[in-house]
């Protein structure tokens, strides 16, 4: 034990410093002395918005190694002033919950279990099915001869937690494909 280490022995610090009772700076460890908030390790801070209700509270997303390490409110926001409700405050867990499903799963018709599928195959299968469903239920005109130019073969539900840009592209692509049964939470 060298002298420096010995001098760091809290008892010595108790006897020599301002904290004889050992309730303050005499007893701190090196880790305590060099304490920083854990966000000090973050390598990015992104301006974001809470994904739950529509109040639109501003969030700061602290990232490290490509993952979210912490989320808190942005005090600059005129809407939320940095505050978050319990759901907003749990946003980090929304991304990092151990229950998150991060790989593609596929259930064949009448199967009792999931299997795995790679992205490219899945996308290809879905594209085929969209085209088939579109064909199967294509309607050129109604009984009175009015143009319909649509398909009733597939539908889509969702969008209220998706971005504007995403909703726009969903509407654009599916409308161009002739689909009309496009809906989201706003109806529910």
């Amino acid at each position: 034990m060298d002298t420096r280490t010995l001098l760091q022995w809290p008892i010595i610090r108790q006897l020599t410093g301002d904290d004889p009772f050992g309730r303050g700076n005499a007893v701190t460890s090196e880790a305590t002395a060099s304490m920083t908030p854990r966000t000090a390790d973050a390598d990015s801070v992104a301006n974001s918005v809470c994904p739950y209700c529509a109040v639109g509270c501003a969030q700061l997303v602290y990232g490290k190694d490509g993952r979210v390490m912490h989320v808190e409110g942005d005090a600059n926001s005129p809407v939320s002033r940095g505050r978050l409700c319990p759901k907003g405050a749990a946003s980090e867990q929304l991304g990092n919950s151990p229950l998150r499903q991060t790989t593609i799963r596929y259930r064949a018709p009448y199967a009792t279990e999931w299997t795995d599928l790679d992205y490219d195959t899945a996308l290809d299968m879905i594209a085929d099915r969209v085209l088939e469903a579109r064909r199967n239920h294509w309607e050129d005109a109604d009984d009175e001869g009015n143009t319909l130019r649509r398909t009733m073969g597939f539908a889509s539900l969702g969008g209220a937690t998706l971005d504007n840009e995403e909703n726009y592209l969903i509407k654009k692509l599916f409308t161009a494909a002739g689909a009309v049964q496009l809906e989201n939470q706003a109806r529910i």
Partner: protein
Amino acid sequence: MTNSDFDAYRPPQPERKRRRRRAAGEVRRTGAGDGSREQPMVDDIQFDSYYGRPIVKAPPWKAPIALYLFVGGIAGASSLIAAGADATERPTMARNARLTALGAVLVGTGALIEDLGRPERFLHMMRVFKPSSPMSVGTWILSTFATASGVAAAGEIDSLLDEKLPLGPLRGVLQAVDGPAGAVSSALGAPLATYTAVLLGDTAVPTWSGARHGLAFVFGSSATMAASGAQLLLTPTAETGPARALAVAGVVGDLVGMHYTKSQMHPLEAEPLEEGEPGRLLKISEGLAIAGGIGALLGGRNRVVAAASGAALLAASALTRFGVLNAGLESVKDPRRVVEPQKARLEERRKAGVTDDSITTAG
């Protein structure tokens, strides 16, 4: 207006009530939401709690700690007996007492470490010396005592084995410090046995906290009684005369001490010492102590009776520690044991004209 078919026959409507108001004297429903309510112990004090949930927490101390309280007492008192035996030239008892002290302190240390959340960090206890922490003070007492007892006992063992321990040149050192070590261990024996009362008393646990006025006497007596009992068990009757006397003194101290302790407590604080499992342990302990005391007093010259009495006293002491520990653990479960004594003492101070020391203020 209405288009009900039964309009004309509608019975007179009771006067519309905005919300059900409780008539005076009507019994409150339980579980209706405003926390649990129980019958007040004292008529003019209404007892409220947050759904009957505990207010304070008991430390996470289990059987090893009770064992530690017990053997710590034995160790401490045994070292005193060893000193007495040395001084009065009772070598067998001196040796037995020293070895008892060492064995007990080793078991105690083991138990203490066992009960830590992070046993590998036991040595962190040595970082500081905190006069405000009975555990810190106690640990220093314990470690010094253990070291000293170890040295003293090593000397005993060495001489017992006719210096056959492979000590080499260290034997000289051992023989030189043997005496002082014994003295240190004797000096720390009594504090070792009684500091644990402070350890328990220095908590917010109602029963322990309430027992703070007398618990040291109970623990000191109990330790004395147990250590004496150990010698009655281990040492031939020829040398155990003082131990018998001590045993009797210990029993008396234990009984009187416990009575005194309870007399200083709020009834709700004392209750766990008398009821339930801890109460039962303490009742058995009391019986065993009395039996052991009588046995030691009257039949102490008989080796068998002495041994039996010794065992009874040891058991009594052990049960006292388990009883007191468990009574404390039990006492936190009912928030009444926190709220009522505190309200009572607050009320008492207010009656005495002290109105400026409440944690609740109007501004």
